[in-house]
């Protein structure tokens, strides 16, 4: 770990501890590939856990995070970089970690990030998608869903839930009131029938 920190310092990068097992280093896009390679070869981060993408629509950025692990599995290093949203492209790292191939393919599909040199940048979970990539924040999911898949209409004998609930609540209230009144009347009746008792009590 000390070795790693000193190496990063030489590159004027900082390793920030986020949680007790979680470290983060932010890096420019140009340095990314060489840094990831040295993580793999020099420091033994042989596992690429995931590649995540966050859409910062307001800043016009994608923030990409690579999560790396050593065989000890005792901590995670996140290598983070941010790229322009317009014509987003990143170097492909499938030659370093083979599993990156499918992660990049998914990111290409969901965010429209391009990976020059990637061998299989084709459809992944979707097919023939010709809209804005669905996980970009400027893609209006609800609008799209309502256009493509309208809801099923109600049955002819369907009742309005709001009205029915209101009726139900009112009926409940009335029943409660009635019960209270009955109880009060009963109590009154009892006191009328046994006035002697009360008198005795008072004495």
């Amino acid at each position: 770990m000390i070795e790693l920190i000193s190496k990063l310092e030489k590159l004027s990068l900082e390793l920030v501890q986020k949680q007790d097992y979680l470290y983060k280093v932010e890096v420019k896009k140009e340095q990314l590939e060489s840094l990831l390679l040295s993580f793999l070869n020099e420091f033994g981060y042989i596992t690429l856990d995931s590649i995540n993408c966050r859409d910062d629509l307001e800043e016009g950025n994608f923030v990409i995070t690579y999560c790396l692990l050593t065989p000890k599995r005792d901590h995670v290093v996140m290598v983070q970089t941010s790229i322009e949203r317009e014509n987003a492209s990143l170097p492909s790292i499938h030659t370093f970690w083979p599993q990156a191939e499918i992660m990049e393919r998914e990111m290409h599909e969901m965010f429209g990030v391009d990976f020059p040199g990637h061998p299989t940048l084709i459809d992944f979970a979707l097919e023939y998608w010709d809209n804005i990539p669905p996980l970009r924040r400027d893609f209006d999911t609800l609008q799209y869903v309502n256009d493509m898949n309208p809801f099923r209409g109600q049955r002819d004998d369907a009742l309005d839930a709001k009205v029915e609930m209101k009726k139900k609540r009112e009926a409940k209230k009335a029943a409660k009131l009635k019960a209270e009144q009955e109880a009060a009347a009963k109590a009154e009746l009892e006191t009328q029938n046994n006035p002697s008792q009360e008198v005795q009590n008072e004495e």
Partner: protein
Amino acid sequence: MMESGFHGCDLDDSLKCKLEESGTQNTHSVMEKAAAWFRSRSIFVVAYGTGCGAIEMPPTFTSRYDAERMGVVGVATPRQADLIILSGYLAYKTLRRVIRTYEQMQKPKYIITLGSCPINGGMYWDSYNTIKKLDDYLPVDVSVVGCMPRPEAVIDGFSLLQKRIKNGEKAGWEKYDENLDFYKKNQKRVLGNHVDPSYETDWYNLENGSEV
């Protein structure tokens, strides 16, 4: 089909009468009724696990609930099957495969869906990649509700289907044949022209029933 060879057989008139009374719409001859009865007792199922509901299929078909005692048996391929079970939500990608599978099946064929997702989208109602109303795209015979339905409910769905087959009620595949325009139009709306095998000469090149 079968009726032609058996018209000559002399059944007891009263029995014939009884059989005719019990049947409804479109089983006409006695033999058709008999065939329908037999058919209802041997439903071969291809279980297409499209969603979470697939997990209810193993208990339904194995010794715990044993659907085989009702004549419901699993088979390997759609070409051998009478019934396809679609057990859950369908993504567009799945729908493509399901349509192809369904069209490969031999008639008569039936569809049972499990869960609320094929009925109205269920909890995937706002997904960019799943359909809401399966019966717009394929003719569903029985929808078993629940999220997900227990094997008892699935078996209830089977027995409802069996009753319908026995009564000779109009099945989904007949509706599919009659309203092919409607179904193909809806399929085209969500899937575009990308349905395998590529339909070059028929419905896929038609826009609202007229050629483009």
